[in-house]
């Protein structure tokens, strides 16, 4: 099994989720994160003192998937999350050794 971690722009969440559901991904875990990358932050002024907010709000999506879905999932995310502007984010792929559904005790691909 594979573990996909994608960092995306927050307002793309709905598009990505819908696209993933269509290709059969059943579960997803989402975290609010702050991203630091090529896309620069913005400057704020508070009572006369300037400061830079370096980090941008992003969302991290994590999904466990079967091995044979890997390519399709990556492509789907790329397509749905794409705006072409800097800061679109990344997709990372890991090897997932085991998986267990707490409710039923199922393991492996059954548990995805």
């Amino acid at each position, binding site marked *: 099994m594979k573990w996909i971690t994608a960092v995306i722009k*927050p*307002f793309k*969440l709905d598009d990505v989720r819908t696209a993933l559901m269509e290709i059969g991904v059943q579960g997803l875990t*989402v975290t*609010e994160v*702050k991203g630091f990358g090529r896309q620069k932050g*913005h*400057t*704020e*002024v*508070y009572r006369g003192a300037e400061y830079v907010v370096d980090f941008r*709000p992003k*969302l991290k999506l994590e999904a466990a998937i079967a091995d044979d879905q890997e390519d399709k999932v990556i492509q789907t995310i790329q397509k749905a999350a794409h705006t072409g502007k800097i800061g679109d984010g990344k997709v990372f792929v890991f090897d997932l050794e085991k998986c267990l559904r707490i409710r039923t005790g199922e393991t492996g691909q059954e548990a995805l």
Partner: protein
Amino acid sequence: MEMLLEVSYALDTFYFLMSGLLVMWMAAGFTMLESGLVRSKNTVEILTKNIGLYSIACIMYMLVGYNIMYGDSSSSIIPGLSFLVGGDNSVADVVAGGEDAPYYSNISDFFFQVVFVATAMSIISGAVAERMKLWTFFIFAVAMTGFIYPIQGYWSWGEGFLDELGYMDYAGSGIVHMAGATAALAAVLLLGPRKGKYGPDGQINPIPGANMPLATLGTFILWMGWFGFNGGSELKVSDVESANAVAMVFANTNLAAAGGVVAGLITARLLFGKADLTMGLNGALAGLVAITAGPDTPSMLLATIIGAVGGTIVVFSIVTLDKLRIDDPVGAISVHGVVGIWGLLAVLLSNGDATLTGQLVGIACIFGFVFVASLIVWLILKVTMGIRVDEEMEYQGMDLAECGLEAYPEFSGSAVTRK
């Protein structure tokens, strides 16, 4: 006798000042209500807008508005133009007594009136929230509070032609509330809805406000301030009849709001299956707006019913405007405009002096004039400085774009599941 006239003068002046103070407090109410009903990324901007507009309104009305509305003019349609506010009454004039003797301080009257114009302007800021440029709004505030509001105010309260036609509007359901809502409507039609509010196939996406306790606090503040708004509009408290009238106005104002809450909550419950707090809050305000045109004549029971009808209307109005894709984040057009009209008509239920014609003409003239005048100003602003922030700024939020500040910087915001 002279001292008695002085004490009586002092009492009426004090009553005016306390009433004005309560209406001033409504500025805080609008601010809290609106900042609770927008998203956190647009909160600083709405706070800035509200405290700014109140200030602009006070200054403009002092400079020119008050004199337009209450100054001399040879026409009953076109008011006169002069600047600043005159002096106060002399002791001699007051203690002369008699019908024409002044019975309260002119400056206290100015103070009471100036907070009304701020109210009218506050109504607009909620409707255009989350997308209008801040400084454009401020420029409009100059035009509205210095000219548009005072001109139509002259027609009735300044003893112009609407007053002559018998248009009855005790504390301003039309002159203040509907006028504000009308200018808001003109703005919203030009501005368009917030990005993401309406989907492609008739879909309506809710955009929940970020802070319900603030919205509720704002409603309570408005409710409290309204006792000054309506209670002060009797313009006198110092004899038995006036005192009784003021007491009646207080009781009716309170009960109309109560009726509005109950009706709003029940209507929402029947329509949506839930006790939608925001409809209860809008119901309270609707009840208040509804009674404002005539809080002195109905019985308490009738006042409650007038408020309840207002609280029912407002729910349907909000849902309807949404279907028409008129995007009003706080429901200002429904609360102050649609229900304002209801309030003006409800005067007929208990006030024998009011006529249907008088009320309808009043509604038509105020609506027509304010709509056209505002639209022209908005259009000029649209062409010159622009009225709407660009898409990316809107997405990022007005706060960073316009104010460089976040409302709640530590509560990271931008929740996962929201638009």
